[in-house]
C-alpha cells in the first residue's frame, strides 16, 4: 500500500490480514486471506460480499475476537494482535465496540435492559456511584430513542427494532471511538431498518464515530458508507468511494453483484440487462488457484488460474485486484 500524503487520519489500518480455521487434518478454511484496507477517522467503511466471503470474520478479527493467523491490525496506531497486558487490552476494548446482527440472540434474556447496557460501565469503572450508573443508562436509552421506563424490563418485552436500539445503547455505553456493525439491520423490517440507519448516522455526526459497516444489502451499504470494500472468498476484490464504486465498478464480480440487485422500479427492471453469474461460490477450504473469482468470471483466461491478481490503485482511491486492469496481463484478454 502506498503511503499517500493525506490530511485525513487513518484510524484503522489492516495489513495483509489472514485468518485460517483448522477444519481437519491439514485442512484449513481460509476465511480471510491476505486482506488489506484502511478506514479514515470519522468515516463509515462498508464491507460487502456474499455469505461465506469472510466479511464477518474480518470484522471479528479486527477487534481480536479471533486471533489473526498472520498480518496486523492497527487501531489508532495500536497493534491489536500484539502481546498486551490486561490493562492495555481493556483500554482497547473500551475504544472499540460491536453491534451484532441478531437482536434476539445478542441480548441476555435473563438480564434487565439496565444491566445489559451497564455491563460495560461496570467493567470499565466509569460510574462512580449507583446513581451515576442509572443516570448514564437513562441518558443512553434516550439517546437511542427509547425511554427510561424501559430500563427495568427484559429483552423479550421488546420488538426487533427496539432490541437493536438496546444493542446500540450498550455499544455506546463506554464512549467508544470505533464501532463495528455486523449486519445490524438484516433481521429488521424495511420501515424499521430506515429508523436504525438514521439513528446510526445521527450518532456518528454527534460523536464523531468511525464505523465498519458489514452487510450484504448493497443498496443500504451504499447509502450509509463513505467508502466500500467488496470481498469474495476471503479476498478483497475492490475498494472505492461508494459513489465511485457504484458508478464505475471495475472488478467483474462487483459488476455482477451490482447488476444482480433488484431495483424497486418496474420500468428499469423490465429493460435492464443482467449479468447472471453461473454456479455457486467455491469452498474456502480448497479455493481456486490464481484469482478466486475465475471459476465464475465471464472474462477468465488461463492467466487468471496461474497468477494471483495484484492489488493496484486504478484511479484515485479506487483499488482493484483483477488482471483486466493490470498493464502486464491486459493483453491476455480480448475485450
Amino acid at each position, binding site marked *: 500500500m502506498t503511503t499517500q500524503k493525506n490530511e485525513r487520519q487513518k484510524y484503522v489500518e489492516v495489513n495483509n490480514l489472514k485468518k485460517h480455521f483448522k477444519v481437519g487434518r491439514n485442512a484449513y478454511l481460509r476465511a480471510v486471506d491476505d486482506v488489506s484496507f484502511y478506514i479514515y477517522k470519522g468515516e463509515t467503511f462498508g464491507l460487502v460480499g*456474499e455469505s461465506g466471503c469472510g466479511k464477518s470474520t474480518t470484522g471479528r478479527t479486527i477487534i481480536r475476537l479471533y486471533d489473526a493467523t498472520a498480518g496486523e491490525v492497527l487501531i489508532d496506531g495500536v497493534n491489536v494482535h500484539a502481546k498486551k497486558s490486561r490493562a492495555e487490552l481493556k483500554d482497547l476494548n473500551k475504544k472499540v465496540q460491536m453491534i451484532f446482527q441478531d437482536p434476539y440472540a445478542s441480548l441476555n434474556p435473563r438480564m434487565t435492559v439496565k444491566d445489559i447496557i451497564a455491563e460495560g460501565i461496570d467493567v470499565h469503572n466509569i460510574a462512580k456511584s449507583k446513581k451515576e450508573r442509572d443516570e448514564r443508562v437513562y441518558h443512553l436509552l434516550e439517546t437511542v430513542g427509547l425511554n427510561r421506563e424501559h430500563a427495568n424490563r427484559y429483552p423479550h418485552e421488546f420488538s426487533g427494532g427496539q432490541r437493536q436500539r438496546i444493542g446500540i445503547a450498550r455499544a455506546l455505553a463506554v464512549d467508544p471511538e470505533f464501532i463495528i456493525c455486523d449486519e445490524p439491520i438484516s433481521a429488521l423490517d424495511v420501515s424499521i431498518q430506515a429508523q436504525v*440507519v438514521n439513528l446510526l448516522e445521527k450518532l456518528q455526526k454527534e460523536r464523531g464515530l468511525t464505523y465498519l459497516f458489514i452487510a450484504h444489502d448493497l443498496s443500504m451499504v451504499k447509502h450509509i458508507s463513505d467508502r466500500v470494500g467488496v470481498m469474495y472468498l476471503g479476498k478483497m476484490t475492490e475498494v472505492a468511494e461508494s459513489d465511485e464504486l457504484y458508478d464505475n465498478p471495475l472488478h467483474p464480480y462487483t459488476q455482477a453483484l451490482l447488476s*444482480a440487485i433488484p431495483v*424497486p422500479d418496474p420500468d428499469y*427492471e423490465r429493460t435492464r440487462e*443482467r449479468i447472471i453469474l453461473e454456479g455457486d461460490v467455491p469452498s474456502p477450504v480448497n479455493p481456486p488457484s490464481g484469482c478466486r473469482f475465475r471459476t465464475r468470471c465471464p472474462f477468465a483466461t488461463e492467466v487468471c488460474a496461474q497468477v494471483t491478481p495484484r492489488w493496484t490503485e486504478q484511479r484515485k482511491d479506487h483499488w482493484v485486484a483483477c488482471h483486466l486492469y493490470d498493464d502486464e496481463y491486459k493483453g491476455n484478454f480480448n475485450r
Partner: protein
Amino acid sequence: MDKLLEIKDLQVTFKTYAATVQAVRGVNLTVNKRETLAIVGESGSGKSVTSKAIMGLIPNPPGKITGGEILFEGTDLTKLSERKMQKYRGNEISMIFQDPMTSLNPTMTIGKQIAEGLRKHQGLSKSEARKRAVQLLDLVGIPNPQVRVKQYPHEFSGGMRQRVVIAIALACNPKLLIADEPTTALDVTIQAQILDLMKDLQAKMDTAIILITHDLGVVANMAHRVAVMYGGKIVETGTVDEIFYRPKHPYTWGLLSSMPKLHTRQSELLAIPGTPPDLANPPKGCPFAARCPHAMKVCTEFMPDYSDVSDTQQVACWLQDERAPKVEPPETIGVGGRTR
C-alpha cells in the same frame, strides 16, 4: 381475464394464552390465470397467514379461519374436508417456502422427495416417477440430474436446494404456485438466478404465482400486480406500475420512501416512525392511523372503505374521501433513482 383464485373477506385468528390474535382481518384478493401477484408487507402483517389459509395449512388449534371464502376455480377451499383438500394441495396449488435448508427432508434422497407428489397425485409408477424427477431437475437447471437425483439435501448448496424445492412444487403442473419469501435466505447473485428461473418456468408452464416478499426490488422484477398488506388488511392493490409510480396509500409511500435508492444520494432515509399495531388488540379504525403523518380524526374511529382509483387500483384510505384535504405523495418515493 380469467379468475383463478378469489378470496372474499377472509378472517383468520389465533388463540394464545394472553388473547386472540386477529392475524387476517377481512382480506379480499383475486389472482388471475398466468399472472404474478405480489403480497408485500412487514412481518406480522398477515401475508404468510393468508397464503397458508389458501393451502389449508393453518394449524387448528390454535389457528382458525373464522370467516370468508377462498374460491379456487369456484370451489370454496375453506369448506373442504382434509381428504378433499389433499387433492388440491401439491397438485393444483403448491408452495415454496423461505428456507430451503428446512423445507427438505434430510433423510430422503432428492429423487424420492420429488417423486412423492407424482406418485400420490398422478399415480405414476416408481420408475416413471424417477424418470420424471430427472427431467424436473434438468428443467430447474441442476447439472448432472441423473447423479443428483440419488443425493441427499446436505449435498446441495443453498441455491441448488431452492431449485430442488421449486422442482418439487412444480412436479404436478400446479395452476397456482405460492412462493413465500423464496429468495430471502439466498445471496444476491443466487437470488438473481432463482428469480430468472421462476419467470422462465412460469412462461413455460402457465402457472399463476402468489409471491410473498418484503423486498420491493423483487416485486418490481417479478410481479404484474401488487397487494400491500398492513395490520391484517390489504390497504392498497394495483398493477405494479400503479403501486410504484402512482401509489395512493400513505403506508405505500412510507415503504417506498424508506428504501435506499441505488442511483441517487440522499442525506437521510425517510423512516416510518413507530411500530406496527398489536393484532391481539387491533385498532378500531385504519391500522396505519397511529403511524400515518396525514391521519385525521376519522382515521382512528372508522376503517375506510375501498375506493377505486382505476379499474385495477383500489385503496383503503380516508384521504380518498372528497371531504379530505388534498395530500400530495412525498418526493422521496421517486423510485429507482429517477424522479417521476
